[in-house]
């Protein structure tokens, strides 16, 4: 992890409005993230967590403010930035008959980085296999993705994001379909990568994981960040069980 605090993501006064809506889904957001941070984003349904993640990787255009990622203006370098961010979307489900294998999908994570015309090499395939092995899904590599269980599909999407070797990892409820053991495994993988400097933002309702691992927590409500607390403050916040039942449940 870098000792000097190097800013990797800076959000200044950003509001995002969905098309056809009048009310912004997130309002006047300010957030600065340093290289190697692990940030939990929490808040009730509809608070704007997914909107925030998709604003960060430029999938949703913001109407106000500025976003800088890797020191670049998101509005001008969206694609270049996206090719360096791993994103695991919320509730990603695939139809049973989709003609893609799990390996195909994991390998796709690398496509944006490879550039036009370039084909994935054997090296890239090995990389995809390694990540699948890490997540314990290498046996599923040749299975059609739609025929996997919800949790298995979720692991494939995590593998896709990791195979990309991203510099920022955005995870939107990555544990929602995982059994407790798988959840532990995914958390330990993420923590390990984070210890090696991977900046990570996790949206989750999983209080156990937050209490055990949280270094910085961002609490959202009604489109705004209502608290942005350090590890110690966060720990103190979570000692008030009434508070977290209020925020999450």
């Amino acid at each position, binding site marked *: 992890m870098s000792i000097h605090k190097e800013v990797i993501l800076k959000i200044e006064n950003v509001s995002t409005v969905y098309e056809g809506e009048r009310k912004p889904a997130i309002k006047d957001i300010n957030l600065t993230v340093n290289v190697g941070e692990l940030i939990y984003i929490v808040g009730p349904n509809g608070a704007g967590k997914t909107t925030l993640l998709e604003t960060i990787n430029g999938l949703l255009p913001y109407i106000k403010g500025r976003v800088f990622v890797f020191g670049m203006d998101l509005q001008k370098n969206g694609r270049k930035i*996206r090719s360096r961010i791993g994103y695991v*979307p919320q509730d990603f489900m695939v139809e049973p008959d989709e003609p893609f294998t799990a390996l195909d*999908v994991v390998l796709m994570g690398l496509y944006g980085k490879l550039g036009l015309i370039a084909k*994935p090499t054997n090296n890239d395939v090995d990389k995809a296999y390694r990540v699948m092995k890490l997540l314990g899904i290498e046996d599923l590599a040749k299975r059609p993705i739609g025929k996997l269980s919800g949790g298995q599909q979720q692991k494939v999407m995590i593998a896709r994001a990791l195979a990309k070797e991203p510099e920022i990892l955005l995870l939107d409820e990555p544990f929602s379909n995982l059994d407790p053991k798988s959840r532990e495994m995914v958390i330990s993988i993420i923590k390990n990568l984070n210890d090696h400097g991977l900046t990570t933002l996790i949206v989750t309702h999983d209080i156990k994981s937050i209490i055990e691992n949280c270094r910085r927590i961002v609490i959202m409500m009604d489109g705004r960040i209502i608290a942005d607390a350090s590890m110690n403050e966060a720990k103190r916040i979570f000692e008030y069980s009434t508070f977290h039942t209020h925020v999450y449940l």
Partner: protein
Amino acid sequence: MIPLDFPIIQRALIGSILAGLLTGLVGVFIIRMKLTSSSFCLSHAAFAGAALGITLSLNPLSMALIFSAIIASIIGPVADKAKLHADIIMSITFPLNMALAFIFITLAPSVSQLTGEFTTILWGSVLSMDINDIAILAIILLVTTIVFYLLWKEFFSIMFNKMMAEADGINTKFFVYLAIFIIGIVVTLSLKLVGGLLVFALLVNPASTAFQFLHELKKIVILSPLIGAATCAAGLILSLFLNWPVGACIVMISTLCFAISVFLSPKRKRG
């Protein structure tokens, strides 16, 4: 016996095989990218273009190509502007193309000339294929194959999930526009084989048949053109035997293949 040594029939057979390969290939992209309206929308754009060509005494095929290429190029941007799927924009453009065609026909100088040209465009006339038609088909097949081969990984990712492809830094809009443009060219060129009314079957059936047997898009994209070529050739031969219209025979064979594939499909079996 079929008189295969007759140059006309040889040309027709080669033309059918080329068009079958081409439509079979493009059909996979049409189905996966949910652009099925492109077949009737763009074939009628070609139809309107040809009508305009006849009215202005220009080459109908070139005008058909130009017209469908223009329509194909504006569908993607209009869809993005309207925030509707391109397929819906094409459904909206389809009657517009028909309307334009009717207007151009009304403006045409001689009705007798029109009838022949339009019968060709509507129903196709593979037996009137000349060496130029075949050369054009071969070139477009080559170019399309090269484009799809070189840009395969981007199309592959978009055909799985457009949002995720965009999240990986792929310019998904560009690829959707490109696909519609290629479809426009291919549809126009296959008009001579089966005509604007039957081209739908050529685009959709082989890919749908291939989907019944295979779980991997990488294999489907190879099998589908082969099915397309085989059904086109078989349809042509059937039409020569029975002296029935070629386009209709191709559609019958290709639909039959699809029907059989549904019964034989390993995807419908248990255990």
